[in-house]
């Protein structure tokens, strides 16, 4: 009996090492997104975008001498920092990931950064965390984002509204890092440009009734209501109540409100409303749409940013010749910015080859990536208007 136990233990050990050997050349990337929670309708396509880049790199066989890239998904919930931190911990300790594509919402992203990524020294690139607060968060050079800070979005919003001739708006925001950060940066920019914000009122997500908020917003008045919220959450409740009571007919929607749900929920009731969402008309965007085909909705919010975030992680690894975060964190800015050969979506193999040969690349990707300051996107925005119940692109800024 003892012998048999020894034998089976030995076999298990050998099998274990064999298993480890065959996977030595594997890169694991964590995909931490809010698959449940306020933006659960956006996250599946975001994950698809990121995994598309990983598949492309694996198929090219060029990353770090033919490494395969495996995505490991985890639920960041968007709102529950505790759950997100636990999920990230699990990915690092149990799945041994080499980098994090994520997270999505600003609050949980900050929590994962300070509690998990910093402690374990793991690089993380967020496709959609936009809070201005993250620009100054302590990150040891580990944190990047392919989405611009909301300080920039506040300026773009101001430009859009000013050009429409709107000088007076009411403002409501979802009471969290994202909403508060965006509302503050918008109010500062709008007032600096000579506009008036009649009221800035918070709303809580998932609450029973928004009559009180709408009453206050309507009383303060304004030509348009700016809703810095989430389309799957309180944001839609606010718009619904504002329409029903006739408090406001047109709205301005920042990125969190723009999604298919907006068309489904309100259709042509909100015709004439405006908004903006990170996006670009660079040829990379069109290439990305072609490449994705029918696999998923390539124009869905933050799907291209997710592709770019994952691509940057892998290109930086190649440039550093290592999947160790401490090495490749220094290379992220290099591969993202000029000088070098421009790399578009679908050309990740080409980029890897150039880097392997010791050349330099300037990753453009699906969203015209240009990382500035502490490693965040300079920010290109797609300005939209609602026409006949459809989200229609006006121009890019």
């Amino acid at each position, binding site marked *: 009996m003892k012998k048999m136990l020894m034998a089976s233990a030995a076999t298990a050990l050998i099998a274990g090492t064999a298993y480890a050997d065959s996977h030595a050349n594997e890169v694991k990337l964590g995909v931490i997104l809010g698959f*449940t929670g306020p933006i*659960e309708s956006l996250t599946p396509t975001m994950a698809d975008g990121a995994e598309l880049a990983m598949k492309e790199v694996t198929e090219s066989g060029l990353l770090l001498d033919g490494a395969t890239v495996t995505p490991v998904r985890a639920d960041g919930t968007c709102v529950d920092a505790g759950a997100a931190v636990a999920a990230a911990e699990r990915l690092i300790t149990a799945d041994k990931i080499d980098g994090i594509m994520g997270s999505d919402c600003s609050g949980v992203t900050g929590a994962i950064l300070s509690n998990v990524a910093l402690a374990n020294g793991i690089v993380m690139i967020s496709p959609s965390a936009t809070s201005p607060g993250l620009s100054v968060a302590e990150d040891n050079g580990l944190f990047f984002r392919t989405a611009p800070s909301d300080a920039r979005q506040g300026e773009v919003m101001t430009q859009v509204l000013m050009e429409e001739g709107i000088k007076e708006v009411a403002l409501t925001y979802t*009471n969290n890092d994202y909403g508060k950060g965006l509302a503050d940066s918008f109010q500062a920019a709008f007032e600096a440009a000579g506009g008036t914000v*009649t*009221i800035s*009122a*918070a*709303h*809580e997500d*998932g*609450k*029973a*009734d928004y*009559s*009180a*908020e*709408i*009453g*206050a917003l*309507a*009383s*303060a*008045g304004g030509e348009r209501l700016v809703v810095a919220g989430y389309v*799957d959450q309180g944001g*839609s*409740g606010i718009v*619904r*109540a504002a329409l*029903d*009571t*006739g*408090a406001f007919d047109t709205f301005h929607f920042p990125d969190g409100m723009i999604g298919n749900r907006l068309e489904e*929920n309100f259709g042509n009731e909100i015709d004439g409303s405006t908004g903006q969402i990170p996006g670009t008309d660079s040829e990379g965007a069109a290439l990305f749409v072609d490449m994705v085909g029918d696999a998923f909705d390539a124009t869905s919010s933050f799907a291209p940013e997710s592709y770019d975030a994952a691509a940057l992680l892998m290109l930086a690894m190649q440039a550093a010749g290592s999947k160790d975060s401490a090495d490749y964190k220094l290379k992220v800015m290099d591969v993202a910015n000029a000088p070098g050969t421009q790399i578009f979506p679908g050309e990740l193999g080409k980029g890897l080859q150039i880097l392997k040969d010791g050349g330099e690349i300037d990753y453009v990707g699906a969203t015209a990536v240009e990382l500035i300051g502490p490693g965040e996107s300079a920010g290109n925005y797609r300005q939209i208007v609602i026409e006949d119940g459809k989200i229609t692109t006006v121009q890019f800024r």
Partner: protein
Amino acid sequence: MDFLNAIVALSNFVLVPAIAYGSQLALGALGVTLIYGILRFSNFAHGDTMAFGTMVTILFTWWFQSMRISAGPLPTALLALPFGIAGCALLVLFTDRAVYKFYRAQKAKPVIFVIVSLGVMFIMNGLVRFIIGVDDQRFADGERFIISVRTFKEMTGLDEGLAIKTTQGITVVTAVIVVALLFYFLNRTRTGKSMRAYSDNEDLALLSGINPERVVMVTWLIVAALATIAGVLYGLDKSFKPFVYFQLLLPIFAAAIVGGLGNPLGAIAGGFTIAFSEVTITYAWKKVAVYLLPESLEPSGLVQLLSTDYKFAVSFVILLIVLLIKPTGLFAGKSV
């Protein structure tokens, strides 16, 4: 004219929404208060009972819609409501048989019942999410408005509009009918009287030959009906989302406690107190003031007592004050 405008603005943004929300809370609080009065525990599963009844109603609504059965200008959900109540009744009766009966036989303390109901809450919560999903479901159809802002403005020529949604009208009418029926039942019928007797003094009621199991069963049936009606009205008026129903538990309990737990009249008063306090204390009176005051006195600020961030705090401050000054609630309920 300005005076009329002020009244209309106030009705549109304060009175109408608060009355509708108050009715929904009152119906929910009635269910909580009945269980407290007769079965003697605080039922934390009430929000999720509402969600379950509403879910069954929604499923039947979809089925009716697919068969093109509709109630004309009224929402189809009203036709599906009896089926929802039946479904909910089956669930609560099953829960009572499987769970609460055991503890009743043991004469368990109320606090044990409360914790048991917490467990039931999580199970129901999971059940609803499992069946219908976590997303928003909208099931309102038929006419959206009794009177919309635009028609009101055209009719009256006033600057301010007044909107009354069909769902708000239905909510208030249904609430009045349900409350009237409930009070008739409790005060005039034999079963209702036996329920009150059981509530007042259990032992005495048993001695005079009242069948306790029957009282318990009737209570659950009424609670299922109240919960489903409250849930459906709320869902029609806003939207159905399991998580929101779970959160509704707080204002409903606040309403029941403010009114006096165990007292049906108090539950109604409590519902309206909570709804009105949430809306009025955080209302920005600027618009109304501009209409009413002479130009020289017009306020430049918002004339808002508290920012809307504090609307939940308002309900709970009222709750605390009531508990400190009159622990049995506004309408002498039972103190624990």
